[in-house]
């Protein structure tokens, strides 16, 4: 499979009339507040380096104003960087010509927006074909492809409705179908589910995970919600004031928060849904009748042990060989005790 990883290198973004002028000052440690107060420029992003893995979900998390939207918009260059590179398939997106960029956006990327950004004057089906229409795909084909994806996101029968006749959740399904119909390698999602009710949000997360299991796109997913980040993210980067303050898997972040700010963030997390059995297992001893596949979360392991009445379980790898063991007590310990760091 092609390598569809995205590499963000030394990226800086300073908003204002002459951002370049202040790069050195920022590099030398000028803070966002100082830059704004002294020079009237806004520091959007500072020295961003993220390797977004191919065919995985990269989550970018942070509070409001931390630069998440600014970050994701550099990947399809809706925003130009002040300095820095975004490399995809060996090419720097930031250096593409207008024509190349247009082709890149048409064929390599698709985007889902927080406020849906559907075309209000078009029906659901005509919204869904939008990307293919811009590409110049013929009528019949674009209609068929759009119908397929509408059906996949559960919108059969709503093709002729207008967006303002649909609920928020359904509108975002249209947004997702519109992006998927493009069949691009990169899927950009800027707080795509943030505007939805909690239940519908869980629903959309499930749809995304289900689709990703078969599509293997490089997904860049923005959220300010830690639970969402941990559920979806193969990798997570945390932004604060335009800087990456920690990146890694969800488990790494929960077990080893880089600073007090992140530790505070993860306090309320359901650890059983994040930490995997492999992290706390001991040497295999074959002393139990139940088995748990490698990579399972603690919550699942505890549930299996409780249901079977066993206090211990064997961890097996994909081939079925025992690679370790886990006790109910250790599982529950890890779920309730904050990790020492």
């Amino acid at each position, binding site marked *: 499979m092609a390598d569809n990883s995205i590499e963000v290198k030394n990226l800086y973004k300073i908003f204002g009339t002459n951002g370049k002028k202040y790069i050195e000052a920022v590099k030398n440690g000028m803070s966002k507040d100082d830059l704004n107060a002294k020079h009237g420029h806004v520091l959007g992003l500072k020295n961003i380096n993220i390797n977004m893995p191919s065919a995985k979900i990269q989550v970018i998390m942070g509070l409001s104003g931390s630069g998440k939207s600014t970050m994701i918009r550099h990947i*399809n260059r*809706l925003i130009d960087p002040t300095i820095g590179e975004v490399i995809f398939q060996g090419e720097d997106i930031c250096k593409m010509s207008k024509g190349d960029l*247009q*082709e*890149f*956006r*048409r*064929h390599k*990327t*698709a*985007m889902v*927006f927080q*406020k*849906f*950004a*559907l*075309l*209000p*004057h078009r029906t659901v089906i005509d919204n869904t074909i*939008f*990307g293919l*229409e*811009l*590409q110049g795909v013929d009528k019949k084909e674009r209609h068929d492809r759009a119908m397929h994806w509408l059906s996949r996101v559960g919108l059969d029968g709503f093709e002729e409705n*207008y*967006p*303002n006749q649909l609920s*928020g959740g359904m*509108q975002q399904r249209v947004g997702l179908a519109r992006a998927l119909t*493009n069949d691009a390698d990169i899927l*950009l999602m800027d707080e795509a589910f943030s*505007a939805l009710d909690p239940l519908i949000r869980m629903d959309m997360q499930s749809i995304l995970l289900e689709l990703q299991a078969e599509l293997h796109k490089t997904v860049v997913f923005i959220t300010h919600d830690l639970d969402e980040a941990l559920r979806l993210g193969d990798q997570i980067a945390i932004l604060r004031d335009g800087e990456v303050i920690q990146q890694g898997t969800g488990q790494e972040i929960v077990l080893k928060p880089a600073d007090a700010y992140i530790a505070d963030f993860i306090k309320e997390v359901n650890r059983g849904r994040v930490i995997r059995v492999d992290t706390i297992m001991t040497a295999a001893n074959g002393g139990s009748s139940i088995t748990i596949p490698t990579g399972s979360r603690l919550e699942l392991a505890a549930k299996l042990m409780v249901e079977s009445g066993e206090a211990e379980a064997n961890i097996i790898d994909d081939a079925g060989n025992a690679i370790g063991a886990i006790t109910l007590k250790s599982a529950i310990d890890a779920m309730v005790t904050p990790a020492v760091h």
Partner: protein
Amino acid sequence: MSTDNAETGLNIKELLTEFPEMSRTELRDFKKGIDETFKGFTREYGEGIENFFDPLLAILVWFEKLVVATPWPLMIVILAALVYAGARSWPLVIGTVITLLIVGYLGMWEDMMFTLALISVATALCIIIGIPLGIIMSKSDRTQAVITPVLDIMQTIPSFVYLIPILMLLGIGKVPGLIAVCIYAIPPVVRLTNLGIRLVDKDVLEAADAFGASPRQKLFTVQLPLALPNIFAGVNQTIMMALAMVVVAALIGVQGLGSEVLKAVNNQYLALGLMNGLAIVAIAIVFDRVSQKFGKRLQKHSEVVHG
């Protein structure tokens, strides 16, 4: 010292009451210079400009003939059908037919047809020129800053003032009348096209960019369709303003309800003036109601709804 003071006081008073104006001869030469220059321009290019507008004259004459020659029952059916297509409202269709019948019965059918022809051609012309102009205006703040004052002048300058150069250039006739109507009526469609495009939701525009729309694709798939209700409001105003100009157009030789009003003014025919005036009002009301209903239908799905 006291006399000195009185003297300067007098001078200042004189200075304040008498405006320091140009000397009479200078002023006359100045005006004459402008007039002569323009006359020279007219002599030089008048014919060329007149020829330039020949196609417009041909279209207007052809359309007038067509409308006047169409048998009245057929014309009523056509107009009723147009009203229905635009407004989808039976009461409005019936109202329109009754209005037409009354106006016809009172002996103003042919004049009304001339006026309808003039308004239709003028509106078409305003749309053809005005919408592209509005699009250009929306593209940059600089073009907007240049075009806006021009539109302001076109709307506020008394129409008789620009009748003078038009008359000098083109003489009396249908084309100068048409041009005078258009100068007065075109600003709304330009302004509202510009405004409509500028008001298009930024999020939707960003989505179009993200999917790789070219500027042209963006214009035709997003900006114009979403600006349409506003553009249409502009067209509606343009029609109303064109109707308001028919009497002025009659001054420079355009036949129709306006010329009858003018005749009534010159001869103090109260009934004639009132009837033709009211016929103009009736047309205006029909146009307005139909275009408003049509505009509402355009707007039905165009609001962005979040959540």
